[in-house]
């Protein structure tokens, strides 16, 4: 992709907007269409685009697999942790009303926390899946016979 100047420039221009749009979908989720899952996918797309244009090695440097693993686990923990927090505040599991003095504020905080967890896990898993599949491709490319065929 080194010679595709147009692709490289356009990708560089687009990626920040993709990321911001993902955040918009994430935090606007409780008012309009959207939410953690969609936002997570869009967020991951930014990294996948980067990997497609600038190569897997660079993408791995931007988003190390260790971070991805942590993100995958932390997202679920944020979700479940919100539920546990409401239990400690005297409510039932995921009873968001307990998170603030005002029940409807509590519902907002709860949904934002939970959706953030969903977004984090979905984005991490999406990028991980892409890295794994792209990594496999790279391994077969190193095989000399395959290289001739390609």
């Amino acid at each position, binding site marked *: 992709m080194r010679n595709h100047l147009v692709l490289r420039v356009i990708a560089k221009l687009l990626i920040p907007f993709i990321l911001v749009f993902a955040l918009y979908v994430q935090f606007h989720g409780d008012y309009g269409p959207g939410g953690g899952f969609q936002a997570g996918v869009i967020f991951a797309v930014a990294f996948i685009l980067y990997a497609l244009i600038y190569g897997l090695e660079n993408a791995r440097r931007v988003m190390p697999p260790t971070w991805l*693993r942590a993100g*995958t*686990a932390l997202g679920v923990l944020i979700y479940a942790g919100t539920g546990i927090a409401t*239990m400690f505040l005297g409510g*039932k*599991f995921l009873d*968001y009303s307990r998170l603030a003095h005002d029940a409807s504020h509590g519902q907002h905080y709860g949904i934002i926390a939970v959706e953030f967890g969903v977004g984090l896990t979905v984005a991490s898993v999406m990028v991980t899946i892409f890295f794994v599949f792209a990594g496999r491709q790279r391994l077969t490319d190193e095989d000399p016979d395959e290289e001739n065929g390609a």
Partner: protein
Amino acid sequence: MLAHLPVLQVILPLIAAPVCILLRRATLVWLFATVVCVLTFAISVVLLVQVMGGEPIRYELGNWVAPWGIVYVVDSVSALILVIVSGIAAVAMPFALRSAASEIEPDRLYLFYTMYLLCLAGLLGIAITGDAFNLFVFLEISSLSSYTLISLGRNRKALHAAFQYLVMGTIGATLYLIGIGLLYALTGTLNMADLAVRLAPLLDSRITLAAFGFIVVGLGLKLAMFPLHLWLPNAYTHSPSVVSVFLAGTATKVSLYALLRILYDVFGVRFDFEQQPMSALFAIVAVAGLVICSLVAMYQQNVKRILAFSSVAQIGYMLLGVAFATAAGLQASLLHIFNHALLKSGLFLAVGCLVLRTGSSQLANLSGIAREMPWTMAAFVVCGLSLIGVPATAGFISKWYLVSAAIEKGWWPFAALIVATSLLAVIYIWRVIEVAYFRPASDRPAGSPPATEAPLSMLVPTWIIAAANIWFGLDASAPAAITARAAKALMGAGG
């Protein structure tokens, strides 16, 4: 804290699973997962005691009231299943330390424990939820994680087996979802209790019939009801030993539980057995499964495969009990769920010990192994006797109840059939025993490593289960009391 036990039952393993990813060190993860499994088991026992002492426990998630929100309902039926699932999971954990380490790549071990806990959370969720769609979600959690668990097996056939199960399991889950979707379109609710009320005047509707068909076939695939069992033998044979133990003891039984829940609590006894020919259908697939799969089991060359086909056959007993459409039959069926979980996981635990020491579960590799591994093979014999249904073992109790239920119903030929198929079980268990006890070790293929007795960390869980088989064979009062109450609750719910 006691009030939160129903939700903790499910979220404890669910939260522990991602923590395993963060811990990463195999032994540390194992220790953590073991503690979690034991705690989960303790919770299920407390729940069972609470339920047996009083009313069913209900827990509204997020404090959303029943028909709108998701409710967890623990009654005598679900409490029994919770104890079985978490009990098997807890017993298999100490066993996993050596067994999983020898069969799974070291850098994937922490992922194995993650998946194991997720699968546990999914199975417990199916048992505890009172919401038909939530049941689907947990069904998928447990299924997806079990596909992964199976694919971790030692050779490439495991991948194929996992893929086969994935395709069949996904079809099953999809059919179930279509059925639930139809019911939702018809009634506008997903809560099981609410569905039963709203569905009562709509039972003649064709949509109800279609939904009923989709759900029965969908869950039939997941529980390996006879002609839909094709995924099971490969999945149990090629998965790592611990996974075979866990899945053989729990997965199909939980699916059967889900089917019972929907049949009795949503559609109602009268619809199932008077308007629909479920008695005939279950009786036919049960008998076909029992006879054919027992015969197939006799000709297998791999012990795990023998046990896998035997599992499909044993599901026949459970379905036969349901086919009687009486409280006694249902009780026998639930008892067999409990006893079969004990005896089949015991058999797979023993086979896991053999695989660790001989590297194979092929009959040819096990010639004369009883001399080198007497304790392992003794446990195998005990659980094998239980499978056959010899008196003073757990397997006898459920067959006794099943035969009594058949006679009470007046279906004499079925009573004879239960005894006859037990004789088929004698044959396939005897083949293993004959090879292990009476063939010389020199019959093994050249180059087989010399075997020694399995380590204590694996023998102790195996013997705990073997001892439980004898214990519940001698004193079945506790499971009999629980299942009697559970059967009454299920039969009563449909009116």
